[in-house]
């Protein structure tokens, strides 16, 4: 098995790491860097629990190789909070009861993070479309939509 050197910036911190050629980005984040906030729900790009933001775009990290992320800037759920203050999305999910078991929540918030970066004032339909690749089994989505609307309404 060949190994490769990669350089990535994750939540503002640069990393130079050796990785196996076949290592998935999600396992690199979780097992190698111990950033376990990004979850695995299906391995097949359907559920979105592993969503992280790579160079501004939400990406399902279970089907991206770590070597493909070489040179990129990655934001994970651990990077949402700044200086001990929750991100408006985190506040929104807390205030609007947008999470129950919490397993899909990091991926859901990262999908929403990508949405709000390109569309500061999304409609309900645009929010639903943006999270349609992220499955939640607990909430029924109504409060997730409210949570994202809450975040969109916060001054930035």
């Amino acid at each position, binding site marked *: 098995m060949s190994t490769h050197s990669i350089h990535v910036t994750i939540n503002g911190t640069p990393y130079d790491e050796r990785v*196996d050629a*076949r*290592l998935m980005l999600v*396992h690199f984040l*979780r*097992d190698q860097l*111990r*950033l*376990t*906030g*990004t*979850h*695995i*729900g*299906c*391995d*097949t790009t*359907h*559920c979105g*629990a592993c969503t992280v933001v790579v160079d501004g775009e939400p990406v399902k990290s279970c089907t991206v190789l770590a070597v493909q992320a070489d040179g990129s800037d990655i934001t*994970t*759920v*651990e990077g*949402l*909070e700044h200086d001990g203050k*929750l991100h408006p999305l*985190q506040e929104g*999910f*807390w*205030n609007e*009861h947008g*999470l*129950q*078991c*919490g*397993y*899909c*929540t*990091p991926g859901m*918030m990262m999908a929403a993070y990508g949405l709000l970066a390109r569309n500061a004032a999304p409609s309900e339909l645009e*929010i*639903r*479309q943006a*999270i*349609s*690749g*992220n*499955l*939640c*089994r*607990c*909430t*029924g*989505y*109504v*409060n*997730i*939509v409210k949570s994202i609307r809450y975040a969109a309404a916060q001054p930035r």
Partner: protein
Amino acid sequence: MLVRTTPDVGGIGHSIKRKEDPRFLRGHGRYVDDIQLPGMLYLDIVRSPFAHARITKIDTERAMKVPGVLAVITGETLAKYNLHWMPTLMSDTQMVLPTEKVMYQAQEVAGVIATSRYAAADGVDAVEVEYDPLPVVVDPFKALEPDAPVLRTDKKDKHDNHIFHWEAGDRQATDTAFKSADVTVAQDIYLPRIHVASIETCGCVADFDRITGKLTVYMTTQAPHAIRTVVALVAGHVGLSEEKIRIVSPDIGGGFGGKVPVYPGYVIAIAASVVIGKPVKWIEDRTENLQADSFARDYHIKAELAARKDGTLTALRIKTVADHGYTDAAANPSKFPAGLFSICTGSYDIPHAFAEVDGAYTNKPPGGIAYRCSFRVTEAVHAIERTVDVMAQKLGMDPADLRFKNFIHPDSFPYKSALGWEYDSGNYPAALRKAMLKIEYADLRREQIEKRKRGELMGIGISSFTEIVGAGPSKQFDILGIKMFDSCEIRVHPTGKATARLGTKSQGQGHETTYAQIIAEELGIPAMHIEIEEGDTDTAPYGLGTYASRSTPTAGAAAAVAARKIREKAKKIAAHLLEVSEDDLVWEPGKFSVIGAPQKSKSIQEIALAAYTNHPPGMEAGLEAVNYYDPPNLTFPFGSYIAVVDIDRGTGAVKIRRFVAVDDCGTIINPMIVEGQVHGGLTMGMAPALFEEIQYDESGNIQGGSFMDYLLPTAMETPKWETDHTVTPSPHHPFGAKGVGESATVGAPPAIVNAVVDALSHLGVTHIDIPITPEKVWKILKEKGVAD
């Protein structure tokens, strides 16, 4: 509803934000796959491509040469320790790993232990297994035919595939009522196999310490204490003793019943850790989860209803064949092989009823677990709510009118049903009236008439369900002999803060918040100062776990009773501090005051300090209590749901335009959390109604073992749920609560089906089996000549 505490205290009735959320929001939840122990090894599993086959050879030579692979465990390995079979919760037996034959596709055949997950997967690919295929039985009716191949050849005395016959009610009186009825209807209803598909799959980290002899297992389980006892019973003969077993259920990414059973993967990981002496992690992937974990439903129901001409229901008769797969691994109270299916008389005062269920073995994975429901209540509710609509259609009555005519009268509680349950409380007409007002039922019926004239297809469907949850009273309920009580231990610390431990385990229901609110209500200690711990068998008192909507009815009750015990002691301390008699004191949330002299009082915090610093002579120090709560009866949450659907004549697609849910779960602890539970339940009710089904072909091949084929609702299909409630407290629960986690999953499917059938009823359609896919509807439209 009366709210007795201030928002700062946050007792019952306050929508306080969830205490557990900050760690989840920051990505610092601790789920089982987040646990990484030094020296940890990984287990991956070889699975059978055949549904029924003799294993002729397992060649591990090539696998053992894969870099990183340390061991391959087979049934023969486990047989040396007599661990290749294990008991199920229904006292049947289940293979851990086979020594002779496999019984369903994706069954575990061997375990590969390696130094990384990738190496373990490589090892699985390199294990070579030779099979000799055997005749496959996937249809339970065929399985019960006299010439069917006998599947459980491991059971020497077993000569057929019949697992159990169960019945309730008076067969003769019911048959007589049917003979003399003015009107009868009969409806075949199939409730297909479905899978809970929690977003987190199942897994564990088994960690055996050779020096201390202690086994710690971090695992995705809804019932850690029961698992500890099962492990002790299964592995006692190899030296695992219950005090040396610690089961830790960490944060759980959704359970819904799928994390109650003991799966072979857990046992293989435990066995490997014990033999190797290192921690072993097993995490199933989604395909394994969908193909091999226990399934729900698979009930073939024939429901018959008898009535007088005026619509008065006189009798209900139900005959069901239940497909349990190759073993009866249902998670059920032992005395009820068909669970609580006998709640099938529902919300109606039906004088005569008889229900029977026959269980069958087939070449499928174990079935009979719940899908967010209390032991077959969904099946029962679907049967009655669907058949009531069939009767309304036959009588030409509005389905709402037929329901109002037959509801158990609000003054008739406690009500003894024809199948033997004593319903504790209910007010069914109030819930249906409220739902009809909210959705403007009469206007919708007028709109429907107009639309039909224009050829548009619109339907309105009602479901007025009654659940039976909170198992359960020890006189009726046990699992492997263990009574189904639950527990709470509360310790109030010197500074007036508290820690409580309970025998249940949250999987997203918000226990860390709601239990704190219950104790805050009883003691006046702010909920934010009450730490809730669950899921660690080394610290929590024994309990049966969280499923079947039992946490609030049992452990929640235990929390209140334990808090009241603490209050009794606190009163003695307050009397001592204030130098008055206990009879002179009055309690209000957070303090005892002297009657007639309210300025003389002691807060719970002052009392807590005194319990450790200045307690009365002769009294033990400390302020703590434990309660094991044995509920006197079950609880009976209910509700009325109304769905409005529009059907696309071009595609057959069903769109839920509106859905109003009025729930009654008795006293509401946290309205925000209750609404969230209803939202989630409604979505998991819609899912099998419209999308989800696990099918098999004749060879037992699963049709669709990924999220590509097994369709969970996304944000695009899920409507904006409209919720409301009525409050009819349970008369026997300490604070009147009933449980709510599963009401909506139980109540929603028939409302949706009834709405779709209603939209097509003028074409002569009387029933459609779930899931109601566009293809199914389109075929009906085509057949009736109304497809665009």
